[in-house]
C-alpha cells in the first residue's frame, strides 16, 4: 500500500469531502480519511475544523487508527479546548485496558494534550500508571509527570507526583529508572534550589547499577544527571569514576561524551599525584580520538568539545596532534575546528609537521579556511619561538603567491610576529611594502601602517608611504585612522625636524585631519597628540615610544571561569556554541550556573572554584594583552587590539570612567596630568589655517572679576597681510554677544600673531543650541568670511551672587519634584569635603550647608547662571566613593545632561 497519494489532494471542497468521508460507515474509509487529514496537517494546512469528526473516530479497536487520531488530537486540542474534553473519557477508559501497550499509549498521549481543563482528569489515571505492574507503562508514566509539570507545576507538586517519581529511581527496571531520572532532571532545572533529585550516595549507587543495564539513551540521561553530583571526598569520586570509565567504549558518541563530562568534573577532586589520576587521564585520550572517526556532525560536536578539553587539560591529547590533520574531503566546519585544535596542540616537538600541514592548507579553495590557516602559521610563530623563523619564511612564500586575501591575512599576522619578536625580522619589511597597493581590508591596512610607524627609522620612504594613506584619510575605517594617526606621531618623533617652525607645520598638517572627524575617539586622540607634541616633545617621546610589553602566546583562550562552566556542559549545545546556556536559552536567567567541584582540603578554596586545580597556569598566561576597549593602552599604542578574538568580558568593563579614574599605573597617571594641565593652559584651535586661507584662530573663554572674556590669538600663516577684521556671534543658548568690536586695528603681517581679549555679555538674542554651550562665530577679514564654532565652558556662566539663602535653599530643595532629580556617581575621587568645596567655590559654586550623616559628608550647593537659573546640588562623599546628586528647578528641562557632566568635570579638577 502506498500512502503518498494522501499528499496529493487538492481541490477547493477538500475539507467538505473529508468531513463526509470521516463519517462514512465503513471503517476502512474512515481510516483513509484520517490519513488524508494527517497528511494535510503535515504540509501545514489548517484542518482544525474537522475536530469533532476526527474525535468521533477515536472509539475504535484499531490501534493504527487510534494512533492517528491521537496524533491529530495532540496537534489541535489546544485550539479547540472545549471539544478536547470529548476525548477524555476515551483516555480514561484506555488507561484500564488489559493491553499494556494501549495503557501506555493513552497515558503518553494524554500528557501531550496541553489543555488545562484536561489535566485534572489526568491525575487519577497517571497515579495508577505510575504504579502499573508493567514496566513499559511505568516508564511512559514517568515522562508523563514531566509533561504535566510543564503544563501545571503546582498541581504536580500538590498531587505528590514528585515523590512517586523519586520512588521510581529505585525501580527494578533500568529503563524506568532512566526515564524517572530524565524527568526529575528536567523538573529540577526549573527549581534550581530544591534538592529534587536528592543525590545521595545510596541513590548514586542505584543509578550506577542501572547504568550498566539500560538503553544507550538511558545511559545518557543517567550520566548527565551524575555529572551534577558533588562527591563528598576523593574516595567517592574515584569509585564513581571507576564505574563510569567502561562507558568510554560505548558505540554511541553521546554516551562517551557524557561519560567524559563526569570524569572531567570529578578529576578536579582527585589528588594530582595519585596513580589513579594519571591512569584516568590516559584513558580519556583514545575515546576522544575515536569520536573523530564518526559521522561528520558528531565529529563537529566532538571537536568543539575537544577544543574545551584541550584548554582545560592540554596533557590529555598532546600526543595526538596527527588525528587533527585536515582531510581533503572533510566538511568545512570540521576543517575549521580541526585547525583550531592543531594550533592549541602545536609545540616544539611537532611544529615541523604542523607547519608543513598549514602550508598545504593555505593553498586550498575555501577562503575562510585558507585565511585561518595563514593566521595559524602566525600563531605558531608566536607560540613556538624556535619555529618563528620558519614561519616567517613560509609567510613570505605565501605573500609571493599574490593571492589577495592570503597576502592581507599574512600581513596581519606578521604584525603580531613583530610584536612578539621586536627588531628581529625587519629585513622582510621591504617585501611587505611592495604589496601596499593590494591591501584593501582595514585589518591589513592598519597592520601595514603599524609596521611602518613602528619601524619608521629603518624605512627610507616611511613618510611617503604614510602620506599616501593620508590622502584618503576620511574614507578609511576608524581602525585605520587611529593607527595612521599614531604612526605619523611615531614617525615624527623618530625623525624630528630641526626647527620649531617645521614641527608646527608637520604636526599640524598631518594631525589636523583628525580634528574634524565625527568620531570623538579619533578627534580626542588627535588633540592629545598635538598638544603633547607642541608642549614637550621629550615627554611625548617617552610616552609614545615607550617600550611595549610583548604579546603572549595564547591569545584566544576562553576565559577561565567560562571554560570551567562549559566543561560542566560537555556534550550539550552550550559546549557547541562555547556559550553558557543562559546566552541562548530563553527564560533561563534565574538558573544557577554550574561550576566544577572544589577539591576538599585544598588551601585556596576561599577564592573561587576556578583557582583550585590545574587551571592556574592558563590564567597567568592570559592577562598580558590589553584588550581592545582599553582606551589608555590604546592611546599609547601599546596595542592595536589583540590579533584574534579576546574574550568579550574583559573589554566591557573598560570605559571612559577609567580615563579619569585612579588605580592606573604611574605612567598613565603622569600622562593624565599632562593632559589636564594642557587642557587648562592651552587654547583650542577654533579655526585651523588650512580652512581659513591662512588665518588661524585659537582661544579660550574665561571669567575675570565678574566679566566674561573671549581670549583669542590670531595668527597669519598666509603669504599676504590681513586687514579689516570683524567678528559676529550667532544666536545662542545664553544670549552671549561681544560688547565691543574686535580690537584689531593694525594689519596682520605674514607669520605674525596678535592676542585679543574680547569682553562679552549675555543680553543678546537667545536660541537653544545643541550642545547647549555651543557658540557659532563668524570672522571676516579682507580675504573672506570664515565660520567656526566652539564650546563655551559652562563655568563662565556661573555668576558671583550664586549663593542662595539657607532658608530659601531648604524650601526650594523640598519643592523639587522627584522626577526632576538626577543622580550620578563619580568614581574614585580622593578629595575630602573641604577641598572639594574650596575648589568649587573658585568657580562660583557655593556650599550652602554641610552635614555628616553616617560617616558620609553631605554638601549642599547652589549656583546661578547668567540667565537667572538656579541649580541646586547635593554631594555625598564617602571615602573613595562619593555619590553625587544633582537636583534642579523644574523650569530647566533640557540641559541637564550637559550641566551635569560639566559639574562633574569641575569637581574632578
Amino acid at each position: 500500500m502506498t500512502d503518498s497519494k494522501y499528499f496529493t489532494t487538492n481541490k477547493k471542497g477538500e475539507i467538505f469531502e473529508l468531513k463526509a468521508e470521516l463519517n462514512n460507515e465503513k471503517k476502512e474509509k474512515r481510516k483513509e480519511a484520517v490519513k488524508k487529514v494527517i497528511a494535510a496537517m503535515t504540509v501545514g494546512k489548517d484542518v482544525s475544523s474537522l475536530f469533532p469528526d476526527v474525535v468521533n473516530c477515536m472509539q475504535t479497536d484499531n490501534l493504527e487508527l487510534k494512533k492517528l487520531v491521537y496524533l491529530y488530537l495532540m496537534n489541535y486540542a489546544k485550539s479547540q479546548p472545549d471539544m478536547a474534553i470529548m476525548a477524555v473519557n476515551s483516555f480514561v477508559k484506555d488507561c484500564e485496558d488489559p493491553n499494556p501497550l494501549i495503557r501506555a499509549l493513552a497515558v503518553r498521549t494524554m500528557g501531550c494534550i496541553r489543555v488545562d481543563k484536561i489535566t485534572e482528569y489526568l491525575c487519577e489515571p497517571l497515579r495508577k500508571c505510575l504504579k502499573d505492574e508493567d514496566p513499559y507503562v511505568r516508564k511512559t508514566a514517568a515522562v508523563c509527570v514531566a509533561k504535566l509539570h510543564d503544563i501545571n507545576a503546582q498541581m504536580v507538586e500538590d498531587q505528590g507526583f514528585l515523590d512517586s517519581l523519586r520512588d521510581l529511581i529505585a525501580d527494578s527496571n533500568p529503563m524506568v529508572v532512566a526515564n524517572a531520572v530524565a524527568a526529575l532532571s528536567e523538573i529540577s532545572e526549573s527549581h534550581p534550589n530544591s534538592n529534587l533529585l536528592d543525590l545521595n550516595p545510596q541513590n548514586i549507587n542505584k543509578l550506577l547499577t542501572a547504568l550498566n543495564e539500560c538503553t544507550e539513551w538511558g545511559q545518557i540521561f543517567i550520566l548527565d544527571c551524575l555529572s551534577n553530583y558533588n562527591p563528598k571526598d576523593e574516595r567517592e569520586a574515584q569509585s564513581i569514576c571507576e564505574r563510569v570509565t567502561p562507558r568510554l567504549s560505548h558505540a554511541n558518541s553521546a554516551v562517551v561524551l557524557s561519560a567524559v563530562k563526569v570524569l572531567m568534573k570529578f578529576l578536579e577532586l582527585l589528588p594530582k599525584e595519585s596513580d589513579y589520576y594519571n591512569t584516568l587521564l590516559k584513558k580519556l585520550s583514545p575515546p576522544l580520538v575515536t569520536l573523530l572517526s564518526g559521522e561528520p556532525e558528531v565529529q563537529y560536536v566532538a571537536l568543539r568539545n575537544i577544543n574545551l578539553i584541550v584548554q582545560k587539560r592540554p596533557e590529555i591529547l598532546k600526543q595526538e596532534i596527527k588525528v587533527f590533520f585536515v582531510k581533503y574531503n572533510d566538511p568545512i566546519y570540521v576543517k575549521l575546528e580541526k585547525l583550531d585544535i592543531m594550533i592549541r596542540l602545536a609545540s616544539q616537538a611537532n611544529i615541523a609537521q604542523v607547519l608543513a600541514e598549514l602550508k598545504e592548507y593555505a593553498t586550498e579553495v575555501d577562503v575562510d579556511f585558507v585565511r585561518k590557516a595563514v593566521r595559524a602559521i602566525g600563531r605558531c610563530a608566536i607560540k613556538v619561538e624556535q619555529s618563528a623563523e620558519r614561519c616567517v619564511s613560509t609567510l613570505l612564500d605565501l605573500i609571493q603567491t599574490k593571492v589577495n586575501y592570503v597576502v592581507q591575512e599574512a600581513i596581519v599576522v606578521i604584525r603580531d610576529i613583530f610584536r612578539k619578536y621586536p627588531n628581529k625580522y625587519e629585513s622582510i619589511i621591504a617585501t611587505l611594502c611592495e604589496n601596499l597597493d593590494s591591501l584593501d581590508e582595514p585589518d591589513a591596512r592598519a597592520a601595514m601602517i603599524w609596521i611602518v610607524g613602528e619601524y619608521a627609522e629603518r624605512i627610507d620612504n616611511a613618510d611617503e608611504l604614510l602620506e599616501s594613506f593620508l590622502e584618503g584619510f576620511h574614507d578609511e575605517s576608524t581602525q585605520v585612522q587611529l593607527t595612521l594617526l599614531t604612526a605619523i606621531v611615531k614617525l615624527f618623533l623618530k625623525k624630528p625636524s630641526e626647527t620649531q617652525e617645521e614641527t608646527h607645520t608637520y604636526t599640524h598638517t598631518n594631525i589636523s585631519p583628525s580634528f574634524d572627524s565625527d568620531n570623538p575617539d579619533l578627534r580626542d586622540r588627535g588633540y592629545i597628540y598635538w598638544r603633547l607634541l607642541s608642549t614637550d616633545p621629550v615627554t611625548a617621546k617617552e610616552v609614545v615610544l615607550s617600550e611595549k610589553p610583548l604579546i603572549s602566546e595564547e591569545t584566544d583562550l576562553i576565559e577561565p571561569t567560562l571554560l570551567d562552566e562549559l566543561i560542566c556542559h560537555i556534550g550539550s549545545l552550550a559546549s557547541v556554541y562555547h556559550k553558557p546556556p543562559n546566552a541562548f536559552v530563553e527564560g533561563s536567567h534565574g538558573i544557577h550556573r554550574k561550576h566544577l567541584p572544589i577539591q576538599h582540603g585544598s588551601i585556596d578554596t576561599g577564592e573561587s572554584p576556578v583557582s583550585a586545580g590545574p587551571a592556574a597556569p592558563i590564567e597567568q598566561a592570559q592577562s598580558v594583552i590589553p584588550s581592545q576597549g582599553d582606551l589608555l593602552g590604546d592611546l599609547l599604542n601599546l596595542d592595536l587590539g589583540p590579533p584574534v578574538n579576546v574574550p568579550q568580558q574583559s573589554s566591557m568593563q573598560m570605559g571612559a570612567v577609567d580615563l579619569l579614574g585612579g588605580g592606573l599605573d604611574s605612567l598613565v597617571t603622569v600622562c593624565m596630568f599632562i593632559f589636564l594641565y594642557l587642557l587648562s593652559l592651552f587654547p583650542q584651535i577654533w579655526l585651523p589655517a588650512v580652512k581659513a586661507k591662512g588665518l588661524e584662530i585659537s582661544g579660550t573663554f574665561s571669567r575675570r572679576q565678574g566679566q566674561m572674556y573671549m581670549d583669542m590669538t590670531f595668527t597669519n600663516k598666509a603669504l599676504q597681510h590681513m586687514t579689516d577684521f570683524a567678528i559676529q556671534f550667532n544666536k545662542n543658548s545664553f544670549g552671549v554677544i561681544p560688547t565691543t568690536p574686535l580690537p584689531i586695528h593694525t594689519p596682520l603681517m605674514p607669520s605674525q600673531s596678535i592676542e585679543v581679549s574680547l569682553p562679552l555679555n549675555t543680553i543678546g538674542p537667545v536660541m537653544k543650541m545643541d550642545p547647549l554651550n555651543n557658540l557659532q562665530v563668524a570672522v571676516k577679514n579682507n580675504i573672506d568670511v570664515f565660520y567656526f564654532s566652539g564650546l563655551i565652558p559652562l563655568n563662565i556662566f556661573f555668576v558671583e551672587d550664586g549663593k542662595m539663602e539657607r532658608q530659601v535653599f531648604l524650601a526650594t530643595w523640598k519643592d523639587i519634584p522627584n522626577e526632576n532629580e538626577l543622580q550620578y556617581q563619580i568614581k574614585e575621587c580622593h578629595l575630602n569635603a573641604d577641598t572639594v568645596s574650596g575648589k568649587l567655590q573658585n568657580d562660583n559654586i557655593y556650599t550652602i550647608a554641610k552635614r555628616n550623616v553616617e560617616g558620609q559628608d553631605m554638601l549642599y550647593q547652589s549656583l546661578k547662571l547668567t540667565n537667572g537659573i538656579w541649580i541646586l546640588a547635593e554631594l555625598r562623599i564617602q571615602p573613595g566613593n562619593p555619590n553625587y546628586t544633582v537636583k534642579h528647578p523644574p523650569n530647566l528641562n533640557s540641559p541637564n545632561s550637559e550641566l551635569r557632566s560639566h559639574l562633574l568635570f569641575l569637581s574632578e579638577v
Partner: protein
Amino acid sequence: MIGGLFIYNHKGEVLISRVYRDDIGRNAVDAFRVNVIHARQQVRSPVTNIARTSFFHVKRSNIWLAVVTKQNVNAAMVFEFLYKMCDVMASYFGKISEENIKNNFVLIYELLDEILDFGYPQNSETGSLKTFITQQGIKGQHQTKEEQSQITSQVTGQIGWRREGIKYRRNELFLDVLESVNLLMSPQGQVLSAHVSGRVVMKSYLSGMPECKFGMNDKIIIDKAGKGGVTNEAGKSTSGKQSIAIDDCTFNQCVRLSKFDSERSISFIPPDGEYELMRYRTTKDIILPFRVIPLVREVGRTKLEVKVVIKSNFKPSLLAQKIEVRIPTPLNTSGVQVICMKGKAKYKASENAIVWKIKRMAGMKESQISAEIELLPTNDKKKWARPPISMNFEVPFAPSGLKVRYLKVFESKLNYSDHDVIKWVRYIGRSGIYETRC
C-alpha cells in the same frame, strides 16, 4: 530536550513534522527552510541558531532531517538519535527517499511516537520495535496476554535487543572483519598519517539466549597470557609478531562493558540477525596495501606531465580487487592523453580527474600510468591547488593485522554446544581515505 523533528525534501517542503514541545511554533519549520535549505551559502555548520532556536540537521541523499529545540540539549545525543532514526527507517522501508517517506508517513509518525517521548529518545532497537510496530498496524489485537507482556518487557528490559524463544534448525554464525585503511602520504613518500578503522560485523542465527565470547589477537590480552605462560621469551616472540595494539574500541550495547573494562574480555548475548559487534581503531604497524608514487611536471604554462606508479605491498598469493586511482586535473584542462600498462584509464572532464581502473592485481607487483595534460591558457593568477591523488581498492586481509582467535557460543538451556555451531570468518580490507599528495 528535543522540541520537534522535521523531515524536508530537497525543495524544502515538509514531509514529516512532529512537535514535542510547546515552545516550538509552526514558524520554526519555515525558519529552517529559509535559513538553511534555501540559504545561498554552503552550510557552514550542522548546528544553526536562528532567533534563539537551535536547529540540528543531517542530510541523507536529498532528504533533510532536522531537530529543533530551544533548550540546552545534549548535542551529541541529538545527532546520534538522528542517525538511529535513519537506521530504523531504513530497516523498515529501505532507502530514505522522498517517495519512501511519503509512502510510509503513517508508519513514521507511529515510530516517532514510540522512539521519542516528550523529546526524550526511548528504545530504538529495530529488533524489538518490529515486534509491535508493523506496517499492518493491527498486530496489537491478536496478541495474547503473554505475548504482550513479553513485548513490553523486551522493550524496557535489560536485553532489549533480543527476544526469547528464537529457534533455528541450523545454528550458524557469520563474522566479517571489515577494515578501512586511511592514509595521507607526502609526495616524498613520508607517511603523514595512517590509521585503520575497523568493524566486526556479525550475522548470528542462533537458537535461544546464547552467551557468546569473542577473542582476537589483542596485544594486551596476549601479553597477559604470555606472562602467565611457561616460557616468557617464546610467548613474547610470538605475540610480538601476531598481536596488534588497538588504540581504542567501542562496542554494541549488547557487550558487557564493565567486563571488558576489568578483564578485557568481550562477552555478550547477541541480537538476532545482522549487527555491528564492535568498532576499533589502530595506528601502529599498519600494512599499507599500496604505495602511490606521483610525479607531476609543469611544462610551460599550457602543459602538465603526470606519471604515477603504484606498487602492491602484500603476499603475492593474494589478489587485490576494484582498484581505482583518481588523478585530479586542473580546471582549465583542454585535453588529456593517457598511457597505462594495466587496466583502463579515462579522463573524466565532469569530475576533473583521470580515473584509472584495474580489476585485479596480485601482491608485490607494480604498474604505471603516464598522462599528458593540455591546458587552456588563463589569466587566472591563482595557482592550481593540486588536490591529492586518491585510491580505492579491496584486499582479502585485515591491514591492521587483526585476527579472530575464537568465538565461543554457550547456551545452557538448549542442547547444542559450541561445536555444533557453524562459523564463518572473512576479512575484507578496503581503502578509506587513501591519499597521496603530489
